[in-house]
Structures are given as C-alpha cells and as structure tokens.
C-alpha cells in the first residue's frame, strides 16, 4: 500500500543532461533530433545561444504577427478615441466634447498623430511583452526543474538538455545511454512531486479573505448611493470651495488665516462691497434724458426702490416688515420716451435681443417656458434645487404694466430675476420692451380693459407694433405651442415676404447698435430704414 502510494507521489517528467559549454550542447541537440528522433525536448542555457533553434527544431514564433495585429488595432483605437472625444457628441452616455478651440476644426488628423503614435507604441509594447509571457506560459513558479540543485547553474554557466518522458521515442535506459554518448557530463531524472500539487490552504484562505476585503469598498459605495443621509457629503479635497476673499455684499469675516479677528467690514452697512452712493451716476448711465434711462416720468416724486440694490444675504435696513409692504410705485412712463421711435427695426432688434437675453427663461413667446425655467422647475419638483417660477409675460398683471415699469424690470431685475443694465444698453432695452408689448398684443384676442394711463401706453405700443406684428409673430410662430394658434394665424399672411426683409433689417440694426448712443443719427437711420422696408414689403 505504502509502496504504491510513494510511486504515485512522483511522476517522471524527463531526463536532464548537463553540458559544460554551448557547443557540446548544440552538438547534443543536433544528435537528439537527427539520430535519436526526439521531438519533445528542450535545451536550457544561461544566455540565448544562436543556432540552437534550428538544432532543436523550433518553429519561428508568431509573436511579431500578434504585435502587428495589436498595433493596427491600436492605430484604429487611437483615431476613434480622439474622434469620439473631441469631434462627436451624439452618444447619450459619456458623450464626446465637441468643443471648438481657437477656431480650429474639431477634427484635424495632423494634430491627432502624436497621440495615435503613442497609443500604437504602448499597445504594441504590451503585446510584445505579455504576448511573450503568454506564449512561454510564464509566470510558472512551480516547475520540477527548480527542485534540482544542479539546475541552479543554468542561469549562470551550465547548459542542459531535457528529453521529456512524453516523447514517443523515450525509454529511460536507452535515452540515458544516448545522452551519455552525446557528451553529457551528468544525466539526471526529473521527477514531479505529485503530493503537493494542491493549492496551499493557507494561501487559498488568505486570497479569499483579501478578495472579500477588496469587495467591501465597492459594496459600501453602492449601498451609500441608494441611501438618504442628512449629513453633508464627504469633502475630501476642499479644492477652491472656500477662498480667502470677500464675496460681494458678504458680511465681513470673523476669522482671517485661522486667527479670530474683530468683525470688521470693508464698508459701512456690514458690506464687503462699496454700495453706490446716493446721487452718483455710474459711467455707463446716460445723463440727460432721465425718462430714457429710467423709464420714469420727469415729474415723478416717488423714489424707485427697485433701483436701490439690496443684499441677497441680509435684510435691508428696516427689517422684514418694511419689505413686505407694497411700496409706492413711481410714476412710470406709459409711452415710449421721445427719442425712441417704435418701428419695424426697433421691433426686429427687440426680437433679436429678447431671444438672446430673455427667451432662455421667459421662452421664445414669452410664456415663461424657456429652457432654464423648464429644467429648473423639473429640478425644483424633485427637491434638488429651489426655484421661483418665471413670470409668464402674458399674465394679466404683467400685461397691464406700463412700458416704463417693464423697462425698469429689465434694468434692475425684480425678485429673483437679475439686472440686465450691464448686458443690454438703453436703446436695446427699450427695443425689448416694445417687442414684449408686441408679443402681449398678439396673445390678447379680447383686449382687456385698462385705465386711461396704461391704455394709452398699450394702444401706443400696440398701434406701432401693428404694422410690425407680422415680423414679430413670424419668428415666434414656428416654435410656439398649439395653444398659441391665434398669434400664428394672424401672422401667416405676411409670411412670404419675410426672409429678405428680415436679414436686411437685422444687418442694419446691428450696425446701428454699435453707435446706439448717437440718438440723433439713430433716428434718421430709423426713419430711412423703415421707409425702405415699407417699400420692400410692398414690392
């Protein structure tokens, strides 16, 4: 019983013959292949002995073709990677970043060559290295050869030839004799120990434990993603979230570079920003025609509270209550100021500016259905952010507003809407007001009843807009939703004459806006243009 066991425990792998120099090894290999007819054999040398491949009968490796295949694919991969990330943005998941930089084309092959080259070299190098290892079946740490003490010199200065037991011509005694004949210094049996072929239990346990431990973080992260937590997110790297600077209108800091300091403010009123002093005018505000720049009638006596900036972060002096009250309104302009002539160009200009600045929130047709508003409302409904719904410009409370008030709203903002005085210049603001009025007019099928003052303004704006209605409506029409049929129908008849005229007037308007402050010139141009346009309309 024990006898058979020990027999089973080792298995003969082959015969290992030692040689002392490369030439005798080569000789022996040659003999083994030709005379002995062996095919399953291997030579072991401390350095590559050239010519032994032929002596032992080794076919050329396919490694170069593997590398070529990988390299060609890497070339394609490099091209696709750069095209996908820099020149395509169709994918819904991880879309490319199709961003034009310095006016250069997003896809220009010469600029992509260096990265393609590097990717080819990197992939091919990996293919060569790992391909070599895989073809050689390395790493192989448990090899019966390593148990033979004589074999340790194979990496130093000795040469070996092993004829494997698997070979058809292998016969222990005969092969041994042959090897001795061919000049082997020593011949030794190579036996594989079959007893410890099992994977060591300790290492097995350790590996499983390691795997489990490694799995923990992803599992915890996955769990955390599906959970609600009241505590703030982990903030590992503060990045630039907290900076040593004053925010505009922020309360002064109580600590500076870690030290506690007396609460000191840069400017009175607990502010870090200098407030505009009462009675001062900023450089870009046009002095002179106050009706033009404020939208308030000249004989007004009530101060415009909307024009005084208050901090978002602090209550205005006077407290909550004062804010709640409806402040007395100044006397708004109900007609456009004298220097503004409402005509086709003004409305075209107003439409253009409106579409740029206002439509993102208020929508192309002023119904409050702009993209920003839609998205923000979606987020607000899911509780991801706070948002005050944007006003529908066709809301009765807005429709009755006099032009001066709308102008003031654009200038200084209202509620959560920000001021636009810095982005849009005075004449353009009036143009927008005119366009808004035109939009409202289009929407109103039955005219609402108004008091004398605002009625004036309305009819004034409305009348002037009438001739222009087509233009305003046209641009809007393709994008308005079904509910707006009225406006669309109204504008339909004039549609055909539109394109030429529109582009014409647009160009002129752009030119005009460059020297918008020269009101005199503007007027002349206005009238000239409107004449021209009327003609083209007719013709």
């Amino acid at each position, binding site marked *: 019983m024990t006898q058979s066991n020990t027999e089973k425990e080792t298995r003969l792998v082959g015969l290992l013959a030692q040689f002392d120099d490369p*030439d005798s090894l080569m000789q022996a290999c040659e003999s083994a292949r030709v005379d002995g007819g062996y095919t399953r054999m*291997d030579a072991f040398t401390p350095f*590559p002995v050239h*010519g032994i491949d032929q002596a032992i009968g080794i076919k050329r490796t396919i490694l170069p073709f593997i590398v070529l295949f990988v390299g060609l694919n890497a070339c394609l991969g490099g091209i696709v990677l750069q095209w996908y990330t820099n020149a395509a943005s169709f994918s819904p998941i991880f879309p490319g970043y199709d*961003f034009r930089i310095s006016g250069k084309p997003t896809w220009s092959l010469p600029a*992509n060559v260096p990265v393609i080259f590097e*990717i080819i070299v990197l992939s091919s190098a990996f293919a060569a290295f790992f391909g*070599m290892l895989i073809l*050689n079946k390395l790493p192989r740490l448990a090899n019966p050869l390593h148990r033979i003490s004589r074999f340790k010199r194979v990496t130093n200065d000795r040469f070996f030839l092993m004829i494997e037991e698997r070979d058809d011509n292998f016969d222990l005694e005969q092969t041994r004799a042959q090897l001795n004949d061919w000049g082997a210094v020593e011949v030794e049996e190579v036996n594989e120990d079959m007893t410890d072929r099992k994977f060591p239990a300790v290492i097995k346990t350790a590996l499983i434990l390691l795997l489990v431990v490694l799995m923990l973080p992803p599992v915890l992260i996955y769990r955390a993603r599906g959970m609600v937590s009241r505590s703030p997110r982990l903030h590992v790297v503060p990045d630039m979230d907290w900076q040593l600077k004053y925010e505009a209108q922020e309360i002064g800091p109580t600590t500076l570079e870690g030290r506690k300091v007396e609460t000191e403010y840069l400017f009175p009123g607990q502010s870090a920003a200098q407030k505009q002093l009462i009675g001062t005018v900023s450089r870009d505000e046009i002095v002179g025609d106050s009706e033009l720049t404020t939208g308030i009638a000249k004989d007004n006596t009530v101060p415009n509270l909307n024009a005084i900036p208050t901090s978002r972060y602090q209550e205005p002096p006077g407290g909550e209550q004062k804010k709640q009250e409806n402040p007395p309104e100044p006397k708004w302009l109900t007609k456009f100021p004298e220097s503004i002539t409402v005509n086709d160009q003004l409305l075209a200009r107003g439409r253009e500016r409106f579409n740029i600045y206002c439509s993102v929130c208020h929508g192309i047709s002023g119904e409050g259905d702009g993209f920003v508003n839609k998205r923000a409302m979606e987020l607000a409904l899911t509780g991801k952010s706070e948002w005050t719904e944007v006003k529908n410009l066709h809301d009765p409370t807005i429709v009755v507003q006099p032009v001066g008030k709308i102008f003031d709203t654009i200038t200084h903002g209202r509620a959560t809407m920000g001021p636009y005085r810095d982005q849009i210049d005075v004449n353009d603001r009036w143009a927008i007001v005119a366009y808004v009025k035109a939009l409202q007019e289009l929407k109103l099928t039955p005219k609402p009843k108004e008091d004398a003052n605002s009625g004036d303004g309305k009819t004034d704006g409305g009348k002037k807009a009438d001739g222009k209605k087509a233009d305003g409506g046209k641009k809007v029409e393709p994008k308005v939703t079904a509910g707006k049929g009225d406006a669309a129908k109204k504008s339909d008849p004039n549609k055909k004459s539109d394109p030429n005229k529109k582009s014409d007037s647009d160009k002129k308007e752009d030119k005009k806006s460059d020297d918008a402050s020269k009101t005199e010139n503007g007027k002349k141009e206005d009238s000239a243009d409107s004449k021209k346009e009327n003609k083209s309309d007719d013709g």
Partner: protein
Amino acid sequence: MATTADQFVDNTSDDPGRRAPLVTGGLDYTGVTEKVAGIMEAEKPPKIWYVLFGISSLITLMLGGLILHLLMKGTGVWGNNNPVYWGWPIVNFVFWVGIGHAGTLISAILFLFRQNWRTSINRAAEAMTIFAVVCAGMFPGIHIGRVWVFYWLFPIPTEHLAMWPNFRSPLLWDVFAVSTYATVSLVFWYMGMIPDLATFRDRSRSKIKKFIYGLFSLGWTGSCRHWHRYEAAYMILAALATPLVLSVHTIVSFDFAVSQVPGWHTTIFPPYFVAGAIFSGFAMVITLMVPARKLFKLENLITKRHLENMCKIIVATGMMVGTAYGIEFFIAWYSGNPYEGFAFINRVFGNYAWAYWIMVSCNVIVPQLFWIKWCRTTPWFMVVVCIFVNIGMWFERFVITITSLSRDFVPSSWAYFRPTLVDIGMLIGSFGLFTTLFLLFLRYLPVVAMAEVKSVMPHEHGDHGDHDDHEEKTAADPA
C-alpha cells in the same frame, strides 16, 4: 570554455586585425556572474554606499516635505510670476526627460545597430532612464496645481466632469508621450532583467530574497524555446522604443515650438531637443557609471572602451547642439521677424546673458576636450567634463524657458524671474530622489545585463572541430 583576454588589457586601441575585447580581466561566464551577483550577495555594501544613501535619502525626504508644502500652500511658493508662468518646474522636467533618453537609446538604437559594447552599460543606463523619468514626471505632475485631479489629463469617462482632454494640445501629447515612454522603458528594463533576476534567485541563500527574486523572475528556466520568443519580443521592443525615444523629446519640444512665443516658435526644436537629450543622457551615464564601476569593481565589464565610446557620442551630439544654437540665430536673422531677432539678441546680451554663456561654454566648448585621447580615456576627467555638460544642459532649458517668457511681446509685462528657496530645494531634491533610486538599484538589482554580456563573449569551439553549422551560432561573437 569561455574566457576573455588577459587581465588589464588596454582595449581602447583600435587594431583592424583584432577585435578589441568587450570584457577584460580573464573573466569567463562564471566570472561575470560572480562579479555582478557578488554585489547583491555581499553581506554589506561598501561604506561609501551607506554614506551616499543616507545623504540622498535625507534629500529625498526634504523633497517630500517641499512637495507637501507646495500642495498645502499652492504654486505661489515657487518663483513663477507673470509672465514667467513656466519656471523651474518645467526647466527641471525637460532636463530630466532629456537625461532619460540615453538609456533607451543605448538599449534600443544601439541594439538595432548591433553595437555589442552596449551590453555592459545598457542595464544601468535603462535604470537611469526610469529614475530620470520618475523625476521628470514629478515636476509637471505637481505643476498642475490641483494634483488630486491629475486624472483629468487622461480620457477617462466621468459622469460629473462630462469633459474630455483636448487632443489637439501639445501639452496633452506630452502626457501621452511621457507616460508611454515611462511605461515602455519600464517594460523594456524589466524584461531585460528577467533572466538576470533568475540568476539572483538561483544564487541567493536567504528565503526572503529567494522569494522576491523568484517572484519577479517569473519562473524563468532559460529554456531555448523561451529564449527564442524572448529575443523576438526584445527585438520588437527595441524597434518600438527607437521611434518612441525620438518622439518623446520631439513632443516635449512641441510644448514650446507649437506656441507663438519668440524663441520657441521654431521648427528646429525637435531635432535640437533630441540631440540635446542624448548629449545630456550620455553625460549622466558617465557621471554615474565611473564611480559605480570603481565602487563595485566592475572595471573589467564596464571597460575604458565603453567609456571612450560614450565620450565620442558626447562630442558628436555636443557639436550637433552647438550647430543648433547657431542655426537658431541664423533663422532669427533670416526670418526678418523683429520679435524673433530681439529674443535672440536678448539671450546673448540681455539680462540672462550670464545663463546663455554658461550654457554655451559648458555644452559647446568643454566637450571639445574629448578630441584628446587622454581626456576620453581618463575616467575621473570624463566625470568632470560630464558634470559640466549636465550643468550646461540644465542651463539650456533654463535659457529657452525663462528668457523667452520673461521678455515677450509686450514690454509692459516684462519681469525678471527669481527662483525661491523652494525652487532650489526641489531641484536638489530631485537629484536626491534620483540618487536614492539609483543606489538601491546598484545594491539590489543586476547592474550589468549578465546574460547579454555572456552572449557577446567569445567562446572557444572546444574539441568539436569546425562544423559549418556553428557559423550561425557564433554570430553573437564579434564577427
């Protein structure tokens, strides 16, 4: 048996009738192994090793501290100013990347050209390459400011960022070039080391060493089937590394050349940078190998002939660099571009003239000494020259980077660059890191590619007579 020529032969003379031996001192296969493995097997390395290791690891610690300081405080701790946004960190980066070129050049290009003398020095040169690239990669790494988002440099799909790198930017090419270069050099170095690590495995007595060397030698047996594929892979890697090594410094030079700054915007930059890189790399190999061969008594493996060959390459590349300096001036004049002209006149006579003249004297004038045979066969003297070359090459990058930036198109924004203590500390620290890594390499890894040296050693045909088929086998011989 394979033995080499007599002891202390002078192998620097060229006798057309006889190949100069690449291994001297009567070493045979066993002798080569004993010499190289002896360094690792010695109980203790020479005392001087401890001294150097102590100093360099302290400097490395200082570097670590400075990097931490930088990360806490921000890049303001450097002397970088407006308009010199690229200060010493980029100078150091280009300097170290350049150093890193010699290793792959020796191992890949000289391999393809069948220059057998490379075998004694390629391992150390490759190690030097890797460590130099480590130092090089560190500088742009910390220069990006917010190091913790370094992965933005790579095309990793992220949900929160929704952005990709701009593949049309030379700085991104640089990321790919340097990281590919580092990886391929590492693979090349490691693959070359596998047979030698197996030698270490088979010779080491301690269990820990046996385990570690055993693990990293992947069970190498020296099977001729393995050697066959190994050599194919090595040849392919060499063929891949050759264009790679030329591309890396080319792409580094694109960082400058693709911009529009006068003095940078020139087409000569790629070849000029590559020549400079090889020049500085070989200088660094000599600077390191002369003391190392002395310390570990490797004179018979890294012979004077090896050193002399490297000196010849230094003088050749030094003159290429000198020519490039001249061509730059010619083009500045010939282009008729006043900004370009100013940039170069400013280099020579402006406020950084001192740096320019250090550069020219170290890079162009000093290497001319290697025309004299005594200079290129006297090791200590070579080291002196090579240190000058390295100083010169650092100043070359300083001159290119700083002078052009400090006086750009708009005179109102001109500013003089002054390095801070942190700048200086980091440059010294990078040398500390480099030396530490190199000393560890000398002690624990095969310094000379034993298997490769053995394959180029002449061996007698013994008593097997003159078989025709032995012609092929002896191809490895100097034939």
